[in-house]
C-alpha cells in the first residue's frame, strides 16, 4: 500500500478511538492496568537480578569456627589459608571483635546487647575470606567445610540462591497475573473494536461493493486497536515510572544503617524505564492487533 493510504488509515483508526469514547476508555484502562502490573513485576525481577549479580561479584566466604578452638589451631588455619591458591585476602575476626562489631552495627540500640559479655558471648570466631574469582567459591567452600574446627561455612551463594528463588517465584506468579490481565484487556479491546466495526458495518458493506480489499477494510480497525494499546502503554509507562521514581527516592532518603531497606540497592529509574516502556509499547500494540483482527472477521463477509 502507498504511504498516503497508510496515513489515511492510521488517522481513521485514531479517530475511531474518540468516536467510541467510553469503550475506548475501558480498553485503555484495562491494558494500562495489565501493563502496570507487568511493569511492577519487571522492575522487581530486574532489581533482584541486579542484587544477585552484585552478590555474585562480591564472593566473600565466612567461616565460623567451633566454640572451643584454641589459639594455636587458629594459627595453623591461618598458615593453611596463606598456602591456598585463589584467596585474594582473608581476615580473622575473634569472637570479641565480632561482639564489638555487632554493638557498632546496632548503634543506639546497642544497650540491648549489654547482657552479653566476654564470658557469655554467643558469637563464634570467624575467618572472612575473599576469593579472587567467583568460580573458585564452590570449591573453596567444600575444602573449608572439611576442616575439623569449622562449624559453618556461609557464603553469598546461599543468599543468591534465596533471592533467585524469590525472583523466580515473583516472575512466575507475576507473569501469571499479567497473562490473566492481558487476556481480560484483550477481551475488552476485542469488544470495543467489535462495536466500532458494527457501527461502521454500512461503510464496510459499501467498501466491499466498491472493491476494497479485505486488508484495506481491516487496517483502520487494526490501527484503532494499536492506538488503544499504545495509549494504555503510555499511561502504564508514566505510572510505573512515577511510582518507581518515588520508591527510589524513598529508599535513598531512608537511613541506611540497620534498616531493612539497606539491603536494597534499587536500580536507578533511567536504567530500567526504557526497557519497560519499550516492552509496554510492544505488548500494547500486539494485544491491540490480535484483539482487532479477531473482531473484524465476521463483518467482512459480504
Amino acid at each position, binding site marked *: 500500500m502507498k504511504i498516503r493510504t497508510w496515513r*489515511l488509515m492510521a488517522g481513521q483508526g485514531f479517530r475511531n478511538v474518540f468516536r467510541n469514547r467510553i469503550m475506548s476508555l475501558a480498553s485503555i484502562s484495562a491494558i494500562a492496568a495489565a501493563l502496570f502490573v507487568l511493569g511492577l513485576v519487571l522492575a522487581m525481577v530486574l532489581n533482584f537480578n541486579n542484587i544477585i549479580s552484585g552478590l555474585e561479584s562480591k564472593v566473600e566466604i565466612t567461616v565460623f569456627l567451633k566454640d572451643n578452638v584454641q589459639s594455636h589451631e587458629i594459627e595453623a588455619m591461618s598458615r593453611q589459608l596463606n598456602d591456598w591458591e585463589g584467596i585474594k585476602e582473608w581476615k580473622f575476626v575473634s569472637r570479641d571483635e565480632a561482639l564489638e562489631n555487632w554493638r557498632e552495627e546496632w548503634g543506639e540500640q546497642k544497650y540491648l546487647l549489654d547482657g552479653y559479655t566476654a564470658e557469655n558471648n554467643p558469637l563464634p570466631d570467624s575467618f572472612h575470606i575473599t576469593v579472587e574469582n567467583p568460580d573458585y567459591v564452590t570449591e573453596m567452600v567444600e575444602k573449608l567445610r572439611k576442616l575439623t574446627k569449622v562449624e559453618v561455612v556461609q557464603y553469598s551463594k546461599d543468599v543468591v540462591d534465596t533471592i533467585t528463588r524469590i525472583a523466580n517465584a515473583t516472575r512466575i506468579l507475576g507473569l501469571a497475573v499479567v497473562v490473566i490481565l492481558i487476556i481480560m484487556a484483550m477481551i475488552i479491546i476485542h469488544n470495543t473494536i467489535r462495536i466500532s466495526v458494527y457501527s461502521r458495518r*454500512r461503510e464496510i458493506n*459499501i467498501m*466491499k*461493493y*466498491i*472493491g476494497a480489499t479485505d486488508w484495506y477494510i481491516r487496517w483502520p480497525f487494526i490501527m484503532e486497536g494499536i492506538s488503544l494499546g499504545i495509549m494504555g502503554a503510555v499511561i502504564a509507562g508514566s505510572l510505573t515510572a512515577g511510582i518507581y521514581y518515588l520508591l527510589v527516592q524513598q529508599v535513598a532518603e531512608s537511613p541506611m544503617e540497620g534498616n531493612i531497606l539497606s539491603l536494597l540497592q534499587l536500580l536507578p529509574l533511567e536504567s530500567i524505564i526504557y526497557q519497560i516502556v519499550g516492552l509496554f509499547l510492544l505488548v500494547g500494540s500486539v494485544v491491540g492487533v490480535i484483539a482487532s483482527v479477531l473482531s473484524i472477521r465476521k463483518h467482512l463477509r459480504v
Partner: protein
Amino acid sequence: MIQFKNVSMSYDNVTHALRNVNLTINSGEFVFVVGPSGAGKSTLIKLLLKEIEPTEGKLYVNNVDLSGIKPKEIPFYRRGIGVVFQDFRLLPDRTVYENVAFAMEIVEATRKEIRRQVPAILGMVGLSSKANSYPNQISGGEQQRTALARALVNNPSILIADEPTGNLDIRTAREIMKIINLIHRRGTTVIMATHARDIVDSMQKRVVTFDKGCIVSDEEKGEYSFED
C-alpha cells in the same frame, strides 16, 4: 460480455431463486431485468457481484469464469463493475465529493488523479454545485446521482443498478434515467433491475422478464409485460 450458462441458484435446496437460467448480455448493451418480487432479480445481481456462488451452471463476465475467481481477487473483480442501489448507500459523514473520492481512495488512485477525476464525474451527473454538501442536505435524486458518480468514477465496464429509481418520484427518476442512458451511450454495459413500468416502457431497451426463477420473456425494445 456477460453469460449465464444453465445457472441455478437455491439458497437452502428448497427455495429455488433461479432455475436453469441462460442469458447472454453483450458489451455495451442496456438490459432491464423485471419481474415480481422474488422472481430472482436480486439473486442475479448478487451472482454478478460474486456475493454468492451459483449452485449449478457457469457464469462468465468479460470471458472470465467467475467460479475461478479466488476470494482474494473478488475486490479487484468488483472494481470493474459499478453498482447503485435503491437506498443509495452513501456515507453520511462524508460530503458528495468525499463519497466519490472514497471509491478512488480504495483503489489507491493518486491525489492528482482524484482531483482531476472527481470534479469531472460530478460535472457529468450535474452535481458540481453540491460537491461540499452532505448526503442529508441533498435530495434523493441528488443522492442517487452521487451514488452513480461513485459507481462510475473508476471507469467500470459494467453498471449494475438495483432499482435505482425505487425511492424517487417520477420526475427525479427520469433525470436519473437520463444519466444512466448517458453512461450507456459512452459504452458501458448497463443492467438495471426495476419495477418502474413507465420507465421500462418509455426507454425502448431490451427487457428480460423473470418469474419464479425462470426467464419468461426476453425482448429487444420490450415492455413491462406483467402485472405486479
